[in-house]
């Protein structure tokens, strides 16, 4: 009997040992690598950080790439690795695990994340106007969001902007919301399909396919979260104030550079994007980006600026949509402007 128990416990130890190894493997991967950024064996002492994009490299990431291409990160003593995103990029987990120090996301992602205990914080917002729109074909005859009827709408179903449209009573039962795969094929195939789009990107691709489209901007309806914001985590920014400040400065200069002259950057983005991006689409996007980043006479020096009003408006909208719980988070937790 006792021998049996002994044998059993032996095996148990072996199993526990293996589990421990597994746990260590997981755990080690999870450790924040903040310390790494502080090491300074490189001669010109540049701080290594990683920036993870939220989508395949496109014009909406232009400024972040411009800072790289034009050496602006370097100028601010940073060695930035820009990691392209994609359909499966998980910016929030990578940030909270500390595997990347900075990420790109939309303002509403930050509140969604904070609501689920991910302490995300926005540091600068290149796009003042959210480019999100519903794109319909001209020949559908639809000219406003209120006219969306008897149509199939391809969109990311869980996204706050869809919830916002629904709350405005705009997506009637005759609008069938279906998942979006990142292709304009269905819209090109027939006028019975509408899709989510970024005003500077997909409409151009549709035009290239010979289809005239109308963009119905969500921002005009009042849902206008800052887009493509530079974000990090509370912890990283608190422990790396100086790096964060320099990162913000470099990104702002990068965006100013991109709006002035995107040619060299677009060339680089085109090389990074293997998803069917074209030079024409990028050039179009870079021009369209000007209105979104610096709307209505906003001076170039204000690029990236964020205001408390904008954030609290978004916060209230998301509370009203029951997407976030005001008992858990506060509006001012979502952003830091300027980083002090």
């Amino acid at each position, binding site marked *: 009997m006792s021998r049996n128990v002994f044998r059993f416990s032996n095996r148990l130890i072996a199993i526990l040992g293996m*589990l421990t190894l597994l*746990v260590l493997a*997981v*755990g080690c991967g*999870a450790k924040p690598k903040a310390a790494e950024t502080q090491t300074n064996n490189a001669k010109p002492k540049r701080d290594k950080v990683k920036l993870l994009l939220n989508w395949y490299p496109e014009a909406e990431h232009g400024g972040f790439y411009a800072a790289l291409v034009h050496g602006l990160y370097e100028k601010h003593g940073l060695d930035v690795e820009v990691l392209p995103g994609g359909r499966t990029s998980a910016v*929030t*987990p990578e940030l*909270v*695990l500390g595997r990347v120090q900075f990420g790109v996301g939309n303002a509403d*992602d930050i509140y*969604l*994340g904070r*609501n*689920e*205990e*991910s302490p995300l914080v926005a540091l600068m917002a290149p796009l003042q106007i959210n480019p999100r729109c519903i794109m319909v074909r001209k020949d559908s005859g639809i000219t406003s969001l209120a006219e969306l009827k008897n149509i*199939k709408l391809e969109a*990311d*179903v*869980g*996204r706050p902007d869809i919830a916002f449209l629904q709350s405005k009573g705009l*997506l009637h*039962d005759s*609008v*069938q*919301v*279906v*998942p979006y*795969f990142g*292709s304009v*094929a*269905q819209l090109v*195939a027939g006028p019975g399909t509408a899709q989510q789009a970024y005003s500077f990107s997909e409409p151009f691709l549709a035009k290239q396919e010979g289809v005239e489209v109308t963009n119905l901007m969500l921002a005009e309806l009042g849902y206008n979260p800052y887009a493509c914001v530079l974000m990090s985590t509370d912890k990283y920014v608190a422990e790396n104030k100086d790096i964060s400040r320099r990162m913000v400065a470099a990104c702002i200069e990068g965006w100013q550079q991109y709006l002035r002259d995107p040619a060299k950057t677009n060339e680089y983005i085109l090389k990074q994007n293997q998803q069917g991006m074209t030079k024409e689409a990028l050039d179009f996007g870079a021009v369209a980006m000007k209105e979104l980043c610096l709307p209505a006479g906003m001076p170039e020096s204000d690029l990236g600026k964020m205001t408390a009003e904008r954030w609290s408006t978004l916060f209230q909208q998301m509370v009203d949509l029951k*997407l976030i719980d005001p008992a858990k988070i506060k509006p001012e937790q979502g952003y830091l402007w300027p980083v002090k």
Partner: protein
Amino acid sequence: MSNTTTPRSTTPLVNWIGNLIPPLLVFVLFLAVWHFVVSIFQLPKAVLPSPLQVANAGWENRELLIKGLWATGKAAALGLFFSVAIGMLLAIVFSQSRWLRLSLYPYIIFLQTVPIVAIAPLLIIWSGNNLRTIVLVAVIISVFPIVANVTSGLMSLDRNWLDLFQLNGAGRWQTLWKLQLPAAIRFLVIGMRIACGLAVIGAIVGEFFVGNGTAYDGLGTLMTQWQVRQKTDALIAAVGASTLLGVAFFAGVNLLSNTLLRRWTRTIDFESTG
């Protein structure tokens, strides 16, 4: 258990409970390891929530999850039904003609290997954003084990039985109906055990792509929605629910095998049926 010289003398209920204990222990151990991994390494909720947080999220979203289970279960059941129907029909055709088998079987293997994720958008263009497309995906994924198993069931006959049938001048249909099909039922059950899990997976993958409109909220749709909203705990709860659905399907197949099909399947000696 000192008095058990023959384990089979215990009552079925005791047997059943005895069979239930080992997997339950594994489950408890699994939850414990999960819990300690999360707490020791303080893993962020976005990366891996604790089992308690997942249970909590599941409870908070119970209505959605139950509706999702129903919707996905319906689609998966339809998928499995058509898989069995189509699969058996194909298997019968294959068993009747070597020529047909040789020329068509490779394409059935193609069904097994087709990257469903890549063709799902195409299926939607052809068939639309509706339940039919979801069922179609489930069938494409789950039909192969039925065809493969039933075909081998129909083909692998006892030579002596076949001789007996031939000696008595049995025709092709008589042989099929009285000898081959009864012999293939056991293989059908084995195929269905594999296919039922695949049908559930197929239904969920189908839902990822087909979506919900405003009326249809399957588990797959819930998963995509919760992923966008960064609700990892609810997402894992939905994964748990889909696992339950798979287990329920598996139990259903076993039940079918032990009741309606008992006549033909009792010779199968599975551990789970005692």
